[in-house]
């Protein structure tokens, strides 16, 4: 313990004496964090969708006062995806070659079916089988596009129905569903019937006047019911409304996912490289052979390098979090959990880096090995849950570290059990990689 503390102090002193390294250690993670955050919060790439239009009739369907055709639908679709117009064979080939994510086929007679109101027209989608995740996302986008078109059509139809209701109630001249006419309307009908009643009563024909009573009641009842039809039709058109209000003007907040990713890449790289460099420097300076002669055990030496990395990760991580808390609208908080998470992640990154550092004779080689190991594993750690990649990311420190970062940044409430499991996972990986590193150091020191 005392020997480890002495080496720890030496490492801090050497770090402080290397201003370039110190600068890189602080500036590099910040730059990486900014780049990753910008990359992850930017617009997602729009998928390419091949459209095969078999409805070449050029027909349009009247929706309210507008007429909609296939081109209008495709224009709306292009708001969500990049439309590539192809014939059926070219579209199938493009899907097979992975050049488009899906093929959307507009069948022959699509608009005619829509116009008829008898047959329900259907669009056909064939999504790529290569990536189930992307295929699922594409289908959801197309579903959303069809939903919006349906909603637009429903709005047009409902408006027409409401105008028809007004026509029935108020009468007048109107053109609807392709027909025009002049109607009396319930309101004027009631006036005419009640006027007739009055005149019959005045003429002494009370019996006839009374016989008109049910007709007046029917007209009145119908008018009232049709008045109720308006809010009901509006409710059918949009049962649930989504009201979007703009946030307070100010800085653009970083997405929590983007920041979690940035934190993982910056701390992961900085931690692994620092630990690898610190360990391999002991070998390159030939000090390891002297230390291994009973001055410090390989276990204590590895633990010291892990602790050194953990402290560096803690300082850099807290600085990044503090910067984000001050400069953006992203809620950080949960500082106690952050402290534990950054320390455990730093220990695990340190163990991984020390193992890489122990494998190389020189610092430059160690850094190269560490970089070559860390980069792909970091990328896998950032991927969403998906089979083998997810499994690999969970047996190295990057997966659980990313889970912990996301949980602390995103989850509205923290489940004590879940976060304990994630932190325990990190601690376990720190122990496993630390043990492997200690064995490697022991072998290299006493070759």
């Amino acid at each position: 313990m005392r020997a480890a503390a002495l080496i720890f102090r030496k490492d801090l002193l050497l770090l402080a004496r290397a201003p370039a390294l110190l600068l890189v250690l602080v500036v590099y993670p910040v730059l990486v964090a900014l780049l990753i955050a910008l990359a992850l919060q930017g617009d997602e790439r729009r998928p390419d969708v091949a459209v095969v239009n078999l409805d070449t009739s050029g027909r349009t369907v009247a929706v309210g006062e507008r007429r909609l055709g296939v081109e209008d639908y495709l224009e709306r679709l292009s708001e969500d995806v990049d439309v590539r117009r192809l014939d059926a064979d070219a579209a199938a080939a493009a899907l097979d070659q992975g050049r488009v994510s899906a093929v959307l086929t507009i069948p022959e007679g699509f608009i005619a079916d829509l116009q008829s109101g008898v047959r329900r027209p259907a669009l056909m989608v064939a999504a790529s089988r290569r990536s189930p995740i992307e295929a699922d996302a594409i289908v959801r986008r197309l579903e959303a596009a069809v939903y919006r078109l349906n909603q637009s059509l429903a709005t047009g139809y409902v408006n027409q129905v409401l105008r028809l209701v007004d026509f029935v109630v108020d009468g007048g001249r109107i053109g609807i569903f392709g027909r025009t006419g002049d109607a009396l309307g319930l309101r004027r009908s009631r006036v005419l019937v009640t006027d007739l009643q009055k005149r019959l009563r005045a003429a002494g024909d009370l019996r006839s006047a009374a016989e008109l009573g049910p007709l007046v009641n029917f007209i009145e009842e119908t008018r009232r019911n049709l008045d109720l039809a308006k809010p009901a039709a509006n409710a059918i058109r949009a049962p649930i409304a989504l009201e979007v209000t703009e946030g307070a003007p100010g800085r653009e907040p970083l997405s929590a996912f983007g920041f979690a990713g940035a934190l993982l890449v910056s701390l992961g790289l900085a931690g692994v490289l620092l630990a690898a460099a610190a360990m391999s420097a002991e070998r390159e300076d030939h000090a390891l052979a002297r230390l291994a002669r009973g001055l410090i055990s390989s276990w204590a030496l590895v633990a010291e390098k892990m602790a050194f990395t953990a402290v560096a990760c803690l300082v850099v991580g807290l600085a990044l979090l503090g910067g984000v808390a001050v400069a953006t609208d992203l809620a950080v908080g949960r500082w106690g959990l952050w402290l534990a998470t950054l320390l455990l992640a730093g220990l695990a990154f340190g163990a991984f880096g020390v193992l890489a550092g122990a494998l190389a004779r020189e610092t430059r080689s160690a850094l190269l090995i560490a970089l070559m190991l860390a980069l792909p594993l970091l990328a896998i750690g950032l991927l969403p849950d998906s089979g083998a990649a997810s499994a690999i990311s969970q047996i190295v420190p990057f997966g659980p570290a990313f889970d912990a970062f996301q949980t602390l940044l995103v989850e509205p409430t923290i489940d004590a059990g879940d976060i304990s499991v994630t932190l325990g996972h990190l601690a376990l990986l720190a122990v496993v990689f630390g043990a492997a590193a200690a064995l490697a150091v022991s072998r290299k020191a006493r070759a």
Partner: protein
Amino acid sequence: MAAMSPAADPVLVARALRRAFRGVRALDGVDVDLAAGEAVALLGPNGAGKTTLLTILAGVARRDEGSLEWAAGAAPRVGWVPQRPALYPRLSARENLRLFAALERAGDPDALAEELLGRADLTEFADRTAANLSTGTLQRLNLAIALAGRPSVLLLDEPTATLSPDQRLRLWKWLDELRDAGMALMFSTQSVDEAMRRGDRLVVLAAGRVLFTGTSQEMVAAHGVGGGGDAEAAELAFMRLVTGLPGTDGAG
């Protein structure tokens, strides 16, 4: 065959040491002894196994076979001076000494560091980083660090290989003082002259085997051509020994 002249009062007895690296035998049944206050020179060409033997004795490398016994059954404090200085180049001479003195659990690491700086004539370079010291000064710091554990045995791997003649003299003056104070020294060298001058006994190694153990006079007598104890005769005897030419004994 090798003439064995065991040390009178050995602090170290190594027998049948063997070590191979990927099938290549670096040491093949080596026997060596070392007594208190004695200086033993390990003499041999490149690849003879000198460094391997010293690193095994120093506890830096492991042995495949053989026994290693220390006086009174307990390992004495062994100081290790590798050929390439084992220290931190970006720490100053003083900081290196303080660190290793503390790691060696010295009662007062600061005082010991100052004492060693003085004994190694490093006081004027005390605050200079090791990376900025000359080769000779760096080797003195390397030796001073080895002394931070207050050893009774000092193992040195070609300590003067990279030094100029004046630096060599300066270093040997200090090593002679240590030996006179009772410290046992074992050093490797490729210089027959240095081995003759500084070693009480010579251990000649070649291809991982001990070819001769004894004084330089004994080596000349056994393997020289014409006797005598001068450097030239010893050089010739050494050459005949390592090239396998028959000497006085062999010529019979």
